């Protein structure tokens, strides 16, 4: 959206108006192909030496846009230190959250920003190998191979980009699963230590960055940390891509400055949803009464058990049942378990099954004690897997048990207040072969 979004007053300066979008082309303008990109931003601003860019990224305060919001400069420093010239950089476009479309949008509409970012990151950490890890079905729709070929023809890339397809599984984008897949194995998480920045792809120090983070890096390299900080707040600077699913079911990708009011992002004027799921399927449900006061900031969202993450916000319409939607997602999350760790393997199916019973799937009233079981199982799986899939699932389920407590009371009596049972949240149809992690 070509939108001038008001930047909330920061501690250090008055309110400023910031022109957006930075990453995506204006709507209707089509893809920024290579010529448009070069016309807009110029050539890749190589620094000529490793590590130089890291200081700029640090000054800019860029954090990861893949979900964890980890300070990007620290990852760069860690890999540069461990690398010894043998590091590998992987751009992560696995986009494994079904409700997220931002990485696809970025690769379709502005691919040369993350591709620039890959080269700049490789230079910064002294990497000789660059990989782009793309969800398999996006390879076609983004025509990313053609974009890379065009760059090669123009000799833009100093390190050739290898494209590696990622399976469409929920944990395929997790960094150790990614390293395992790119190394030629299955996209299954491994135990840490060692973290991937120490030993990742083929045992080498590996930098894993979401493609949006790389895109921001490519702009910081050109326009500087101060420019990056001209949007957002002092503690959470910059802009981020958000995937917004409105209560009417329509979904869009928008770029917003950190600190923007959520109500504005979600267009809450018309139909009032009952709740908003913030943070995707490992996130948390937020009551609508709070949304009007919340800003797109970790500082605000974390107080409610949510986070900005990968910018996924889904508004639940008033006519749906939050328990039914939660049960659908929980079933999906259970099926997406790697099945490697006892607690996750045992806990998630039981949680999903109990939620289904609570939601009314069995046609009978839920047995008494079912909520206590859910709480206990959530406590048993939290933090006990090799990756954070059980933790995220627990966060999501616990927030649902809090958020939809009135619905639970109704369901225990055999009543559901929803007037529509039409599925709302996007759940991919099951993979044809459950053994497909490659």
């Amino acid at each position, binding site marked *: 959206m070509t939108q001038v979004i008001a930047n909330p007053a920061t501690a250090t300066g008055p309110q400023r108006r910031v022109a957006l979008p930075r990453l995506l082309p204006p709507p209707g303008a089509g893809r920024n192909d290579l010529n448009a990109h070069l016309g807009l931003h110029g050539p890749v601003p190589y620094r000529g030496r490793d590590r130089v860019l890291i200081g700029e990224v640090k000054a800019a305060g860029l954090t990861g846009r893949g979900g964890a919001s980890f300070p990007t400069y620290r990852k760069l420093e860690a890999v540069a230190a461990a690398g010894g010239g043998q590091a590998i950089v992987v751009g992560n476009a696995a986009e494994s959250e079904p409700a997220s479309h931002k990485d696809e949008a970025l690769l379709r509409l502005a691919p040369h920003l993350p591709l620039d970012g890959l080269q700049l990151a490789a230079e910064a950490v002294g990497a000789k190998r660059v990989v782009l890890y793309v969800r398999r079905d996006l390879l076609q729709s983004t025509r990313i191979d053609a974009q890379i070929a065009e760059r090669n023809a123009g000799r833009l890339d100093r390190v050739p980009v290898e494209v590696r397809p990622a399976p469409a599984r929920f944990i395929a984008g997790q960094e150790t699963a990614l390293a395992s897949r790119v190394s030629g194995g299955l996209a299954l*998480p*491994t*135990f840490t230590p060692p973290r991937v920045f120490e030993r990742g792809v083929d045992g080498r120090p590996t930098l894993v960055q979401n493609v949006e983070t790389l895109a921001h890096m490519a702009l910081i390299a050109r326009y500087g940390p101060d420019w990056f900080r001209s949007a957002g707040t002092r503690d959470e600077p910059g802009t981020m891509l958000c995937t917004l699913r409105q209560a009417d079911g329509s979904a869009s990708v928008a770029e917003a400055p950190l600190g923007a009011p959520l109500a504005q992002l979600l267009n809450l004027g018309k139909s009032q949803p009952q709740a908003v799921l913030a943070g995707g399927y490992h996130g948390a449900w937020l009551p609508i009464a709070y949304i009007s006061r919340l800003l797109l900031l970790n500082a605000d969202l974390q107080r409610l058990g949510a986070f900005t993450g990968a910018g996924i916000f889904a508004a639940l319409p008033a006519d749906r049942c939050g328990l039914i939607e939660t049960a659908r997602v929980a079933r999906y999350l259970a099926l997406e378990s790697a099945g*490697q*760790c*006892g*607690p*996750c393997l*045992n*806990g998630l199916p039981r949680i999903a099954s109990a939620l289904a019973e609570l939601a009314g799937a069995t046609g009978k009233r839920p047995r008494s004690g079912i909520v206590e079981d859910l709480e206990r199982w959530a406590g*048993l799986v939290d933090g*006990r*897997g*090799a990756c954070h899939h059980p933790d995220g699932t627990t966060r999501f389920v616990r927030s649902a048990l809090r958020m939809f407590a009135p619905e639970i009371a109704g369901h225990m009596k055999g009543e559901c207040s929803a007037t529509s049972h039409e599925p709302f949240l996007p759940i991919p149809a099951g993979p044809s072969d459950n053994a497909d992690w490659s």
Partner: protein
Amino acid sequence: MTGKLRVNPIACSGHGLCAELLPELITLDEWGYPIVSDQPVPAGLGRKARRAVTDCPALALKLFNAS
């Protein structure tokens, strides 16, 4: 001094010997998998902890030295 115990949940297949050898720090959940205390191993239990690490049939229990 001794460090912290952690279990590699991928390697762990629920033999349960660790909980038998070190019940002060490890209990089994209702599915037979270990819940390992994340507190540092007290000095008096160091020997037992090292034995639990060595005896795990799956070599899934690890002692990370405090440093």
